[in-house]
C-alpha cells in the first residue's frame, strides 16, 4: 500500500520534472521571482533594524530566524502541495475533479501529486540561507539534537500551512470555488512573520488556537531563543501539526461525501 503510493508519487514527480526541464527559462524565472519576493521582505526588516536595535526586545537575528522558519515551512507547502490552490477553479468548476474520483487511488493523493511547483525551490533556498545566517547569533550551541528538533519544527510548520489550506480549499465542494476564502486565511500568515508578542492579545490567541499560523514560525523559532518564554508551548508544534492535518483530512472526506459535481 505505502510502497505503491511511493512508487506512484515518484512517477508523478518524474512527469512533473520533465515539464520543468522542458521550460527551463520559466523554471529559473519562477525560482528567481520567489527569491526576490522573500528578499524584499528580509530587506525590509534589515532597513527597519538599521534604525532600531530591538523590536519589543527581539533582536534582528531573532526576527530573521522567525522569518527563515516561516519561509522554509511555507516552501514545503509551496513545492509539494501547491495544487490545493486550484481545487475550485481548475478541478471542480470545469468538472475535472470527477476524473480523480474514478481512479483506483486516494483522490486527495492524486490531486496533490498532480503538481510539483518548482517555484517553491526559491523559497526553500532563501529560507535555509536565512536560518543559517541567524543560527550562530541566537546564543545557543547547535548539537545534533537541536538540528533534529529544528528539522521536525520546519516540517511541522509546513504541514500546518498544508492543513489550513486543505481545510479551507475543501469548502469548494459546497461552494464550487473557495479561493477567496483560502486566500484571505492565507494572508493571516503575514502575522506569523513577526513575534506574536507585538500584537494584541486577541490576535495572538486567534493565531495560536483557532488558525494556528503562530506555530508555523514564531513558536518553533521561540524554542531556540533563550528567555523567550515560549519554549514549552513551542514543543506543541508537531502535535498541532498532526492535529490540524487530522481535522483537515476529516473535513476533506466530509466534503467528498457531499460533493455532487458541477453541471448535474
Amino acid at each position, binding site marked *: 500500500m505505502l510502497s505503491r503510493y511511493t512508487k506512484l508519487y515518484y512517477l508523478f514527480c518524474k512527469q512533473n520534472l520533465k515539464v520543468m526541464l522542458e*521550460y527551463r527559462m*520559466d523554471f529559473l524565472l519562477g525560482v528567481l521571482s520567489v527569491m*526576490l519576493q522573500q528578499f*524584499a521582505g528580509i530587506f525590509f526588516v534589515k*532597513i527597519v533594524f538599521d534604525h*532600531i536595535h530591538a523590536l519589543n526586545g527581539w533582536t534582528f537575528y531573532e526576527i530573521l530566524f522567525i522569518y527563515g522558519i516561516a519561509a522554509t515551512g511555507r516552501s514545503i507547502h509551496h513545492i509539494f502541495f501547491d495544487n490545493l490552490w486550484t481545487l475550485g477553479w481548475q478541478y471542480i468548476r470545469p468538472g475535472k475533479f470527477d476524473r480523480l474520483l474514478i481512479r483506483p487511488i486516494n483522490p486527495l493523493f492524486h490531486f496533490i501529486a498532480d503538481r510539483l511547483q518548482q*517555484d517553491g525551490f526559491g523559497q526553500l533556498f532563501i529560507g535555509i540561507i536565512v536560518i543559517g545566517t541567524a543560527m550562530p547569533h541566537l546564543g545557543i550551541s547547535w548539537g545534533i539534537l537541536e538540528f533534529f528538533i529544528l528539522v521536525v519544527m520546519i516540517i511541522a510548520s509546513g504541514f500546518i500551512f498544508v492543513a489550513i489550506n486543505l481545510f479551507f480549499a475543501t469548502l469548494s465542494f459546497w461552494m464550487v470555488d473557495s479561493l477567496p476564502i483560502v*486566500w484571505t486565511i492565507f494572508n493571516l500568515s503575514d*502575522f506569523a512573520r513577526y513575534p506574536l508578542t507585538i500584537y494584541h492579545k486577541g490576535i495572538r490567541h486567534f493565531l495560536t488556537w483557532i488558525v494556528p499560523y503562530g506555530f508555523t514560525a514564531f513558536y518553533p523559532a521561540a524554542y531556540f531563543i533563550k528567555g523567550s518564554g515560549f519554549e514549552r508551548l513551542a514543543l506543541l508544534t508537531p502535535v498541532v501539526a498532526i492535529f490540524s492535518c487530522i481535522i483537515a483530512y476529516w473535513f476533506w472526506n466530509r466534503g467528498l461525501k457531499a460533493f455532487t459535481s458541477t453541471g448535474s
Partner: protein
Amino acid sequence: MRKYIEFARVQMQVHAAYSAWFWANTFSILLRMLVIYFFWKAVYSSRTEIEGLPFEGMITYIIIAMFLQMFVSGVGQELAHTIKDGNVAIELMRPYNLITRLVAMDLGDKVIHFVRGALPLSILAFIFMDITLPSTWQSGLLFLFSAFMGIWIGTFFDLLIAILAFWTINLWGLQVMKEAVISFFSGALVPLILFPEWFQTISLFLPFQAMVYVPVAIYTGILTGTEAWLALGSQIFWVVSLFVLLRILWSIAIKKVTIFGG
C-alpha cells in the same frame, strides 16, 4: 471613445457580481493594516522618531503607500493571459485597440476599487489609526496630481511586463517578480529616506519611486517646495517615456504573433 467607456462600465458591473472576492480583498486589507499598525507600534515603542518621522507620520506614510500600491498595477495579468492562450490573435482582429480596451477596463476596475474599497477603508484608517491629513491644502492637491501620475506609470509598466508573456509562459513568476521589484524600489514598504544612501541614489534613476514614494512623500511633507516640483517633473518624464516604450515594444511583439500564425 464610446466603446471604451462601455468596456469600463461593464468591468464595474463584473466586479459587483463577484462579491466573494470583494469581501476577501476587504478583509485582507484590514488584516494588513492591523499587521502594519502593530509592527510600527512596536518599532516606535522605544523611540519617538526615525529619520525625522514621528509615529503618526510613519503610519500615515505606510498606510497611504499601501493603498496607492494597490492602484499602481494594472491589466498586465489580463494581457499576459490573452497572449498565453493565443486569444491575442483574435483580439487583434477585433475593431478596437487591444491595449486601449484593456486600459479602459482597468480604469473601470480602479474606479470601483476606489469607491468600494480604498475609500471606506481609508476613512476607517483615519478614524482608528492616528493617520493625519496633509499639512497644507497645496500639498494635498499636489499629492492628488502626483498620485494620478504614479498610477499611470504603474499601469504602463505593468503592461510592459505583460508583453514579456510572448517569451515566457510562467506568468505567475513574472507577476511575483514584478511585485517584488516594485515593493522594493517604489517605497511602498518604507519611505525611501530610511534606505541606505546608495540605494536611494539607484532608485532615483528608476521609475518605481515615481509610482508610490513621490506622491506619498509629498502627502506626508517629506518632499516639499522645489524638491516636490522636481519629483513631479521626473514623474511626467516617466509617464511619457514608458508610454513610448510600450508602443514600441507592443508593435515589435505584434509582429511576432504574425510570424507564429504563418
